[in-house]
């Protein structure tokens, strides 16, 4: 136990003193600060140069009706529908109207050609131009009003019928996927990045000890199980610290800038993550991390040279990437309770991501969660002890990377 503590301290220091580790963490925090403060900075500049961005002071909409009696009602309705514009009725010829739009005298122009048709003139049609949609509605209403009054209704009656609003409310009894999607997405992605990154670091760490022959002394001084657990737990804590730094600062910066984000659905949904889900995240992160880091460590011990690491870890990396893709695809499709996902949420190598996704985006019975976590904990210990054994055999093997069968045989004999 004392030995474990010594190894753990030594390894943790390795991460915390590592310039790349510190650099990446600081960079991520700064990046998040940049994103989170963006609306505040934006608002600051906006308030300084407010004039040109709001069209209220004079952006003109020209309106030419096809008959004089319609011009007045249409102008009134258009003014109401475009409150930020200055709607002007005109009798000018088409050329003059077009000219006014081109020169910028008017922002745009509506030329009504009948009760149910019009031409919209605008100089540069913006991607987000919604004016025709508004105009459509106005004219539709005008047409219906006219039709109703002609059929003998009073204006008031017609107005009432047209003004009817449907009220609706949605109450999600389980989980709201639309709301959970974004933070699940971010969490899964963070899980993926951290496990892959730190897993590789554990493998490299072990392999470099082996290639520098520091292993020759280490293996005679410390128990392989202490070595393995010390390394893996230290790197897990380093990974967690990094996550906490990144997400903690994100949360802090969000709090500082909450007012400026208004009701941005994505951002709000991310930071409204329930605590229980955060705890599940932590559980699956730690267990998934251990499982993969042990494997990476064992693989690192079988490589003689650092260059061999990349090819050696390929199978484990692939396994992890595949489970990531399965989860991402089912998340995107919206159905996270497929048979595949259910199966994946119990297989230890895929369950950290699959079960977490199901918990976040669907309603999973508690006994399934307990079973999944139980299997995972069991596998972590099994894989931990097995990889410590592989480690003990692997670190003393030099030369070509041995085949899996040969290692397992050696482990059984050792």
């Amino acid at each position, binding site marked *: 136990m004392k030995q474990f503590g010594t190894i753990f301290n030594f390894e943790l220091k390795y991460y915390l003193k590592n310039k790349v580790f510190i650099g990446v963490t600081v960079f991520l925090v700064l990046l998040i600060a940049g994103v989170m403060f963006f609306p505040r900075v934006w608002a600051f500049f906006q308030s300084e140069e407010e004039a040109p961005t709001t069209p209220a002071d004079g952006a003109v909409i020209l309106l030419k009706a096809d008959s004089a009696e319609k011009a007045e009602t249409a102008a009134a309705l258009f003014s109401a529908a475009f409150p930020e514009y200055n709607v002007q009725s005109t009798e000018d010829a088409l050329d003059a109207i077009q000219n006014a739009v081109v020169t910028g005298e008017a922002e745009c122009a509506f030329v009504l050609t009948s009760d149910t048709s019009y031409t919209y003139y605008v100089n540069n049609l913006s991607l987000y131009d919604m004016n025709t949609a508004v105009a459509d509605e106005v004219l539709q209403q005008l047409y219906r009003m006219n039709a109703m009054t002609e059929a003998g209704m009073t204006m008031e009656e017609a107005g009432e019928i047209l003004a009817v609003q449907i009220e609706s409310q949605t109450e999600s009894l389980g989980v709201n996927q639309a709301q959970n999607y974004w933070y699940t997405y971010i969490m899964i992605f963070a899980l993926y990045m951290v496990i892959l990154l730190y897993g590789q670091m554990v493998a490299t760490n072990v392999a470099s000890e082996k290639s*520098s*022959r520091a292993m020759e*002394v280490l*293996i*005679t*001084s410390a128990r392989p199980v202490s070595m393995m657990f010390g390394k893996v737990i230290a790197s897990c804590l380093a990974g967690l610290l990094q996550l906490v730094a990144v997400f903690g600062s994100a949360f802090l910066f969000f709090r500082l800038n909450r007012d400026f984000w208004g009701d941005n659905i994505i951002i709000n949904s991310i930071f409204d993550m329930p605590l229980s889900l955060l705890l599940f995240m932590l559980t699956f992160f730690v267990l998934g991390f251990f499982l993969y880091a042990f494997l990476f460590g064992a693989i690192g011990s079988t490589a003689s040279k650092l260059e061999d690491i990349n090819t050696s870890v390929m199978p484990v990396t692939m396994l992890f990437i595949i489970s990531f893709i399965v989860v991402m695809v089912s998340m995107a499709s919206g159905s996270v309770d497929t048979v595949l996902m259910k199966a994946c949420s119990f297989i230890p190598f895929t369950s950290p991501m699959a079960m977490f996704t199901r918990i976040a985006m669907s309603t999973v019975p508690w006994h399934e969660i307990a079973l999944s976590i139980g299997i995972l904990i069991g596998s972590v210990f099994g894989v931990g002890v097995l990889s410590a054994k592989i480690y003990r055999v692997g670190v003393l093997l030099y030369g070509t990377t041995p085949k899996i069968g040969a290692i397992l045989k*050696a482990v059984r004999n*050792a």
Partner: protein
Amino acid sequence: MVLELRSIEKSFGEKRVLTGVSFRAEGGKAFGLLGRNGAGKTTSIRILMGVFPADGGEVLIDGKPIDYKKIQIGYLPEERGLYPKKIILDQLTYFARLKGMEKKEAVKAIDFWLERLEMTEYRNKRLDTLSKGNQQKIQLITALAHDPDIVILDEPFSGLDPVNAMLLKDVVKEEIARGKIVLFSSHQMSYIEEFCDSIAILNAGKVALHGDLHEIKRNYVRDRLVVRTEFSAPILADFGTACTKLENGSLLIQLGNAGEKKEVMKRLVERYELDEVKVFEPSLNDIFVEYAGDSAEEDKK
């Protein structure tokens, strides 16, 4: 304290590495474990240190199975290497603490050894800034800092200049004088001859020769004479095929039996102008070649 390996057996897969290896090393004396590459020295050492278990046989201290919690072992591996990018004090402290020392006493012991090996100025430097010989001295500290009962030195002199080799010799002699079991493994026979009281020669996983070095030498049949002279031609002519010229210029005379020794010596002294005449005693090198030479296992390690 007496360290004893008894009938150690070990195979890796199909390959038999050690067959019935037994030897005995005493405290206060140095023991030389010799053998060609691949003879099983490193495997024996690893079993002795408990890195992996033997398939059969036992490792005993004073007749009882070794308890690694009580018996401290210091090891200087043949394949040298520590953490190249880390501060020397940090890594030495780490290794000492892995051996069970508290931080304070570890730092104290390390400072003592840095001073003793004239390395104090490198205390807070990174290992890879040091020359190869100095890195070796640092590695030696990992083997000695925790004051082990058994010190295992695998090729300790390789890569050291004569001054550092002298320093190391002094350190080793001090350790022996302190009653420790010092186990040498080396191909440099002159060093083994200088330090070791007893040896074991491994050949293809078996002990080919084991015992007190002086006794081994005494037990050789004393039927050869070494003659040092400046006028070798008449002697060569006199003794014919029984006399051969050695590389260093001396003559080696093979006698019919050991009993002729006195008579032939007398004859030589009377007839010829000699600088020296003595009974031939085999060097450790000769013994090694004789016992370890006929193995074809050179390339297997």
